[in-house]
């Protein structure tokens, strides 16, 4: 995060720009999260990621209306375009 201190980042998209080629964490609408390598983005937050892992957070509700413990469904994709209108946040993943 030296770039933040050095003032290289002047607007939000600059943070995303610095993450190009790096692994990122994405939060999407519909209780989905992704991690993957960021290869492209635009002002709508349309994205292209590779080696993607998707986690869908699901809470099943029984017939009596009680919620079961949350469970996570996982999927993997080798190359993925994500439409920007689903994107909530983009964060660099420091491994």
């Amino acid at each position, binding site marked *: 995060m030296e770039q933040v201190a050095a003032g290289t980042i002047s607007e939000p998209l600059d943070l995303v720009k610095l993450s190009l080629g790096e692994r990122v964490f994405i939060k999407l*609408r*519909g209780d989905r999260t992704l991690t993957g390598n960021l290869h492209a983005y635009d002002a709508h937050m349309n994205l292209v990621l590779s080696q993607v892992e998707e986690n869908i957070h699901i809470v099943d509700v029984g017939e009596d209306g009680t919620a079961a413990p949350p469970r996570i469904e996982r999927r993997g994709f080798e190359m993925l375009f994500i439409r920007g*209108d*689903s994107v909530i946040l983009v964060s660099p993943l420091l491994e």
Partner: protein
Amino acid sequence: MSAVEAYVDHTVQVILYDGRVIVGKLRGYDPRTNLILSDCVEREYSLEGVEMVPLGLYMIKGDNVAIIGEMDEDKDGSIDYTEIKAEPLGEIRL
């Protein structure tokens, strides 16, 4: 949008944002995906089979259109829709 031009005067299946399925002949369209369909039939999917509801001539506002598909009429005619049991399609959620 010009991709839709190829469907004019063909039988198409339109899937709407709320998950409804409408089949009809595409008579016209504009750049907003507003559609004119003649001899429309709504196909109501349920676990009891598909119910066909005739609707007539429709203008569908483009905002509601999710997918326009060209029907294979031979294949469509060979399917017994009373035997197709499935939940209706979900709505498009943002």
